[in-house]
C-alpha cells in the first residue's frame, strides 16, 4: 500500500519546502501585482513593491485580505487570469447577499485535487478503494474536491452528493464502500441510521472517513469511529483558498498537515495583525503560493488555531495545524453554513422588530439547531394566535432567505431579553465544539 500520494514533496526536508516556497512566492506576488488591480492598490498604499518580496520571510510585508475585500471584489475583482483560461467556478455557501465566487484554471483544479488525493492516501486510500463522496456536489467545494481527489488516486468513486440517507446506506452496503467523505455530523447520522436498521459496525466494509466543512470534537470522532467501525480523519479548507485539502490528517490524528508547497500559513494576532511565533495561538492566515486564477495573498481565515512543526510518525514533514479552536469574528457554522449574528439582526430590523434578540445554537441528534428569541413590540401583538403564528412563519422564512438555513423563531414579551451594558451577549452556543 502507498503511504503518500506525492512522497517526494510530502516528506521533503524543511529546507527543501522552504526553497520551493521562496521560489513560488516571488513569482506569485509579481503575478498578483501585475494582474489584480485591487491588490496592487493595497500594496501601493502600503508602499510594498513586488521586488521587496524575496522569499516567504517577506510575506509579512504584504497587506491582508479579508472576507469584506472578497465581497467588495465580487465577482471578478480578484481574478488574476483571463476568464478564457478559467475552467471552473465554485462558491461559498453564501452568507450575505453576495457570495464569494472562486475561479480555477485547469492548473488550479489539478493542484486542488492533488491536495485532496494526498488526504485520501493519508487516510489509507488507494486505487483498490471505493470512495463514497456524500459532500454536496455543485457550487460547494466539498463534493468537487474529494471527488477529484478520489479520481486522482484512482479509486472507484461514488458521487452520491448529500442527503437521501436510505440510498447512501444501500449503496454503501451493495457497492461495499471503503472510504466515506462527508461532514462529521452526517457521518454520525449515517452511523445512527445503520444502527437503527440493525447493522453492526462490522457489517459495513468502511475502513476510513474523511470528514470536514464544520467543527467537530474528539468525542464526536470517537463516536463516529465506534459507530462505523472506522478511523475518522479531519480535513480543512475553504473556498477562498480552493476548497477542502488545504490541510488533512494523517494516521497520527494529532492535527492536520498543511500542504505547504501550495499554501503558506501564518498565525497572527487578530487585533494587531502581528505575526506570532510558531506554537502560539492566533488567527490563521493563508497565502496561495501557486494558484493562478484566484490567488489570495495573506487571506485572513478568522479561524483561531495553533501551528506546530515537528517530527510526525507518518513521515510527513509539512507543518501541522490543530483543529480550529474558535473564531476571531462572531461567525457561527451551523449545519455547514456560515452565519453571522449581524445577518440575523438585519433581518429583524427589516421586518420591523427591535434589535433585541438571543441566538441559541445547539446540536441535537447530531444536527445543529438554531433558535432565536425575538422580542415582540406592542404594535405587533395580536390577540389572535393565527396572526402570531403567521408572524413567526414570515420571520423564519425571511431568515431562511438571508441565512440559507431556517431557524426556529420564539416570540417573547418586550424587555425580557437581558440588556447588557458592555458588549452584548447575543449568542449562546451549547454545542461545545472547542475545548
Amino acid at each position: 500500500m502507498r503511504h503518500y500520494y506525492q512522497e517526494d514533496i510530502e516528506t521533503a526536508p524543511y529546507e527543501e519546502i522552504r526553497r520551493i516556497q521562496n521560489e513560488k512566492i516571488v513569482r506569485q506576488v509579481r503575478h498578483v501585482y501585475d494582474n489584480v488591480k485591487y491588490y496592487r492598490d493595497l500594496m501601493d498604499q502600503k508602499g510594498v513593491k513586488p521586488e521587496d518580496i524575496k522569499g516567504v520571510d517577506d510575506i509579512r510585508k504584504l497587506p491582508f485580505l479579508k472576507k469584506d475585500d472578497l465581497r467588495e471584489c465580487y465577482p471578478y475583482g480578484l481574478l488574476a487570469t483571463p476568464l478564457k483560461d478559467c475552467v471552473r467556478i465554485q462558491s461559498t455557501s453564501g452568507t450575505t447577499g453576495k457570495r464569494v465566487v472562486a475561479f480555477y484554471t485547469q492548473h488550479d483544479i489539478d493542484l486542488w485535487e492533488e491536495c485532496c488525493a494526498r488526504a485520501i492516501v493519508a487516510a489509507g486510500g488507494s486505487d483498490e478503494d471505493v470512495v463514497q463522496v456524500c459532500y454536496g456536489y455543485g457550487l460547494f467545494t466539498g463534493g468537487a474536491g474529494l471527488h477529484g481527489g478520489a479520481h486522482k488516486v484512482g479509486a472507484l468513486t461514488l458521487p452520491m452528493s448529500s442527503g437521501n440517507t436510505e440510498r447512501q446506506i444501500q449503496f454503501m452496503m451493495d457497492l461495499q464502500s471503503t472510504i466515506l467523505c462527508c461532514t462529521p455530523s452526517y457521518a454520525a447520522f449515517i452511523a445512527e441510521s445503520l444502527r437503527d436498521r440493525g447493522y453492526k459496525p462490522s457489517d459495513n466494509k468502511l475502513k476510513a472517513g474523511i470528514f470536514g466543512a464544520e467543527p467537530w470534537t474528539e468525542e464526536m470522532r470517537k463516536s463516529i469511529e465506534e459507530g462505523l467501525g472506522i478511523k475518522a480523519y479531519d480535513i480543512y479548507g475553504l473556498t477562498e483558498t480552493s476548497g477542502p485539502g488545504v490541510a488533512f490528517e494523517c494516521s497520527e490524528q494529532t492535527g492536520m498537515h498543511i500542504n505547504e508547497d501550495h499554501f503558506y500559513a501564518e498565525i497572527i494576532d487578530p487585533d494587531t495583525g502581528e505575526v506570532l511565533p510558531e506554537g502560539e495561538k492566533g488567527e490563521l492566515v493563508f497565502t496561495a503560493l501557486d494558484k493562478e486564477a484566484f490567488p489570495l495573498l495573506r487571506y485572513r481565515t478568522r479561524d483561531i488555531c495553533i501551528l506546530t512543526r515537528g517530527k510526525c510518525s507518518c513521515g510527513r514533514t509539512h507543518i501541522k495545524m490543530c483543529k480550529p479552536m474558535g473564531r476571531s469574528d462572531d461567525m457561527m457554522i451551523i449545519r455547514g453554513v456560515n452565519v453571522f449574528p449581524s445577518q440575523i439582526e438585519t433581518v429583524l430590523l427589516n421586518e420591523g422588530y427591535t434589535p433585541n434578540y438571543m441566538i441559541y445554537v445547539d446540536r441535537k441528534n447530531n444536527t445543529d439547531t438554531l433558535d432565536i428569541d425575538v422580542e415582540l413590540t406592542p404594535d405587533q401583538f395580536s390577540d389572535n394566535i393565527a396572526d402570531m403564528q403567521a408572524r413567526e412563519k414570515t420571520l423564519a422564512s425571511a431568515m431562511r432567505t438571508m441565512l440559507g438555513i431556517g431557524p426556529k423563531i420564539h416570540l417573547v414579551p418586550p424587555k425580557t431579553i437581558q440588556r447588557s451594558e458592555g458588549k452584548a451577549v447575543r449568542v449562546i452556543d451549547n454545542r461545545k465544539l472547542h475545548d
Partner: protein
Amino acid sequence: MAVKQLSVFIENKQGRLSEVLKGISESEVNIRALSIGDSEDYGIVRMIVSDLEKARALLGENILSKITSVVAVKMDDRQGALYKILRTLEEAGINLMYTYAFTSNKQFGAYVVLRVDDVEATERLLSDKGFELATDEEISG
C-alpha cells in the same frame, strides 16, 4: 355596543399566568371571563373584566396588553343555542378567529364571546337575526 376585551401576552412558562394576574386578583377588579390561546412559547390571555382601565393599570407597563372589541351574544341555556349563532356567522361568511363562552350569575344565563374582523357588521347581522347582544355595562357590571 361592542364589548371590550383585554388581551395579555405572556410567556408559556410555569407560574407566569398567576404572576401576571396577581395584581388584578388582589384588587377589586373582577375577571368575568377568561380564555387562553397558547403555543409552545407563549400564551395569549383574553379577559372580560369589570374595570378595563384599572385592570390594565394593574398589569403595569412591562406587561404587553391590548384592548380589542369583541361581540358578546346572550345565549339561551338550551341545547343547540351556540350552534345557531355559529351557523348564522358561517352563512354570512364571517370568519371567526376564536370564541369562548361564560355564564353569569346575573339575570341572564350564558354569553358567548366572538372575535371577528368586523365587529359592527357582525353585531348588525346578529341583531337582525333576533339575537340579543350584551353590552359592556351588562357584562362587567
